[in-house]
């Protein structure tokens, strides 16, 4: 099924686009380093979203043109950013007070594995090397919604949505919604609740690619995105 899957599955840009549709006007949002950062590109017109970065900036905008970077103005991924009117600087303790204190409306992170309990594993494969955690363990606590963007399965076809995480945990019971390359899945009281799936994929095929039961409540919508 792998080839067929690759033909229908969403690109990262499409997953990011889908996640962006759920970000409400007036939200304060932290986008994790890497793939989640792409979501900002697809922010729907007319919605005002304030982006937070761990290293002490609120209200930043796009990357500056190459050659115009100020390297004292970066985000947590160490990429150069620009300021929008109404931005603010603050130190690291105030920055994580915003995170831990429940002031963010949404944090979006990547994942190695997400369990049906909402447990997230995204910081360490547990296979040795230099461990590095950054702000991931802080970000999964405090934001009103903690969402994940991810491929539905690993490169070798293993489910990333699982019953129990086998990799080292980032946080326990913290994820509220998962945007995958095949579906949108909520975490609801310790269970996966399927909200949307690609029309080209049957429920049974999706279930086969998922490591725990996909529950249904109130119908499944088509996961429909533009070509990106």
């Amino acid at each position: 099924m792998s080839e067929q899957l690759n033909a229908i599955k969403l690109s990262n840009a499409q997953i990011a686009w889908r996640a962006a549709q759920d970000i409400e006007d007036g939200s304060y949002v932290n986008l994790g380093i890497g793939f989640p950062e792409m979501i900002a590109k697809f922010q729907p017109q007319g919605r005002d979203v304030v982006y937070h970065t761990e290293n002490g900036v609120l209200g930043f905008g796009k990357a500056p043109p190459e050659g115009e970077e100020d390297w004292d103005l970066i985000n947590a991924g160490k990429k150069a950013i620009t300021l929008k009117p109404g931005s603010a600087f603050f130190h690291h303790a105030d920055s994580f007070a915003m995170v831990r204190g429940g002031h963010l409306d949404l944090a979006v992170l990547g994942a190695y594995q997400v369990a049906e309990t909402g447990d997230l594993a995204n910081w360490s494969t547990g296979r040795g090397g230099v461990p590095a955690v950054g702000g991931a363990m802080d970000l999964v606590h405090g934001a009103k919604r903690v969402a994940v963007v991810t491929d539905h399965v690993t490169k070798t076809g293993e489910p990333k949505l699982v019953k129990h995480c086998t990799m080292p945990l980032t946080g326990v019971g913290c994820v509220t919604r998962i945007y995958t390359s095949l579906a949108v899945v909520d975490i609801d009281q310790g269970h996966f609740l399927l909200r949307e799936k690609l029309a080209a994929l049957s429920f049974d095929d999706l279930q086969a690619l998922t490591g725990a039961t996909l529950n249904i409540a109130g119908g499944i919508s088509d996961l429909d995105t533009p070509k990106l």
Partner: protein
Amino acid sequence: MDKTLSSLAEAVSGIGDGATIMIGGFGGSGAPIELIHALIDRGSRNLTVINNNAGNGHVGIAAMIEQNMISKMICSFPRSADPKVFTDLYLSGGIELDLVPQGTLAERIRAGGAGIPAFYTPTGFGTDLAVGKPIAEFEGRSYVQERWLKADFALIKAELGDPMGNLTYRMAARNFNPLMAMAAERTIAQVSSLVPLGEIDPESVVTPGIFVDGLVEISTPKQEEILNRRGARYPESAA
């Protein structure tokens, strides 16, 4: 994004009976007098109020107590020569008091805003104000465990504010205001000057807008100390 509110009445409209409210200020400086008086006009009752003091004179928090709106005060220094209304109410059992050392009060509010449910402090160890609280020893010294403080609403006073809620303060009127802004479900600021977005230097923002839910411009705010030196009362008919 525009968090500007059209009136004081709108600003306090959500504050119902039984709410817990943090009110900024220290003595006569930094108190959001117009917001407090709007709340008196609204007439909410059975409120828990968190402030360093329990009011002075016959305006602001003192006037709330006179109007019998407050059932509990959480503060560090409720004693006041004038008015006697808190004293009389307290001694007759008409108002509850939770007395907290000033630094612990500030840190508990910050903890509420920062998602820290409890912390240890040397303050109060071995005193009556630590009775019943967990004690722990770190590196041979004893500390008291204190819990976070949160509120349903914070009413604060700031100097400059922009539509996103970024705030600066005026001198020692800063005091508890930036902390309370962090620790309430809904933070309402009265600002002495509402400026367009981008006019506050991002380096000089003291309270980033993420902590502020609504703001109302009061361009020539009343100052509690000055009101009290004039013998002001609120409502004026209360004299």
